[in-house]
């Protein structure tokens, strides 16, 4: 995934050339293409959007979705918001912690990365989780690892 050229990114961002209002979308497109936003892409986006690198960096750091390093094969989002707290997310999170995953740090272990999120909109079937975009209701360790093994295999 780290093999990319300036041309390929510029090609991808083509429709937004000179559009200063497309910084967020450009970052999203790069992340969609590469899985993360490498530092050099900030310069490419700045040039393409005709804004300063500082502005691009500002947008990049504001939004929690963006990552500066490649993600694991399986990215697990675990909800830490109120409705899931009421449904026992704390014990799920501590079980995951015992298995070596700190959702607050988002460390990678065995091609799996677990991250906290505030609400997945599945608040009546908590604790809620999501593995590479696929939702898991009434989440347990067993359900989560069954889903991750399907994508890391």
């Amino acid at each position: 995934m780290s093999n990319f050229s300036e041309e390929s990114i510029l090609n991808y961002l083509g429709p937004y050339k000179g559009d200063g209002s497309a910084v967020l979308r450009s970052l999203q497109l790069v992340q969609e293409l590469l899985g993360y936003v490498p530092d050099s892409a900030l310069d490419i986006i700045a040039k393409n959007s005709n804004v300063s690198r500082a502005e691009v960096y500002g947008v990049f750091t504001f939004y929690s979705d963006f990552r500066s390093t490649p993600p694991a094969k399986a990215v697990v989002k675990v909800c830490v918001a109120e409705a899931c707290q009421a449904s026992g997310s704390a014990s799920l999170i501590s079980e995951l912690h015992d298995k070596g995953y700190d959702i607050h740090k988002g460390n990678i272990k065995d091609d799996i990365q677990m991250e906290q999120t505030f609400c997945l909109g599945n608040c009546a079937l908590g604790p809620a989780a999501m593995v590479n975009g696929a939702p898991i209701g009434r989440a347990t360790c067993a359900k989560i690892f069954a889903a991750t093994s399907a994508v890391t295999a």
Partner: protein
Amino acid sequence: MTKVFVPMDSAALSMGANEVAQAITDQATKSGLDVTVVRNGSRGMLWLEPLVEVETEAGRIGYANVSADQIPDLIATGLLSGSSHDSCLGLVEELDFLKNQTRITFARVGVTDPLSLVDYEANGGLKGLRNAIAMTPAKIVDEVTDSGLRGRGGAGFPAGIKWKTVLNTESDQKYICCNADEGDSGTFADRMLMEGDPFTLIEGMIIAGIAVGATQGLIYVRSEYPHAIDVLNQAIQIAIEHKVLGTSVLGSEFSFNLEVRVGAGSYVCGEETAMLESLEGKRGMVRAKPPIPALVGLFGKPTVINNVMTLAAVPMILADGAASYQSFGVDRSRGTQVFQLAGNILRGGIVELPFGITLGDLVNKVGGGTHSGRPVKTVQIGGPLGAYLGVESWDVPMGYESLAEVGGMLGHGGIVIFDDTVNMAKQARFAMEFCAEESCGKCTPCRIGSTRGVEVIDRIVAGEEQAKNLELLEDLCEVMTDGSLCAMGGLTPLPVRSALKLFPADFGIKVEVK
């Protein structure tokens, strides 16, 4: 041919609905059965998901909590003819939970195929838009004003007045922005409507465009809703192909284009001015008001910003008239509200009812109390910035003003239920922590106060100089309330203060709380 419905709503998917749909198709092929699997939205009875329905002459028969490995057995015992089985619920529409509701905004959700425009029209869709096309813009705005529809995003501002402001503002370009950044924990109605009946939202936005003279619409959806984004994009494509969207809406002189924009994991972008900044590709920093977005909105142009639920109520208002919608509700809370029962709740999901049902009835009678079976200790209404209420508020009717009277806030209509194992000091601390995490950083009380708030609560719980620290917390809450531009900093004190007032013992408080 037998029609079988398996929801493709995210909540249903989270319980294995895709696997169930696949198993039904596989089994039908294997046994040479003539079955069509329709992927509908969810009925909103989320504790029953995956809820499989079979169309019979008597009506649609439901089967609850179906799993893929049950399918061969279910089909062998007559699922396709609606025969009884342990998981059989009988006629879905006769279930108390559904039967006792007034489904207006959610009338089609779970009933129709979300991506079938034919289904949509056959069930009353596009009637409102056709009526609107035949009316003057001012008359459309009057209808919406007369209906009493108020913003469902939380602030409850009368939708018609907002529209009128945009209509009366001269500009070469105006925008309709749908706020679908449903970030409040305990709310999922926007997501379910977008996944289960996207054409309703699209129709509502086109009507808004015709009413105020806007030709471009944008739907700002949070990235945590990948499935809703996918369904909306497909629905927009279908609407374009059928000339519902585009240069000549349903053959009229009106033009309306619509685009989905995706958020990037920021709660504060649900605040309307932060959302505008984000739509302009910037950091989601809150703007000062005035000027209001209706005058100076997206790219400085007059902009209608409405929540999904607000815009989705519009087609029905234009189809059946303002008086019909206005006839529901209490006082100044007119129409229906889509309540969402969430958290530790036995029967969680969507409850659409006229305003006025009491909180206690909603939680206990409709929701059946907690999922854990333990007593309810508290409920939080209106998301992370909403107040905690105790069981002494059971008799409060659900409405904007009635909730405000007891220090609560309706917000987006989400209700999170907690049982008696919850520690309210932890919840208060979390409210401050969440604010620190999600603050855009523009206002000092919000940016710094939230971090100080966590520390002060920790000191109170640790029993350090409680009287002094309680005074400090109160002072901090006051500064945050009065000194923040938006609800992020301004309302974070609401859950904190209410938790402290209702459950001082959880904070280990030995002195009296004022």
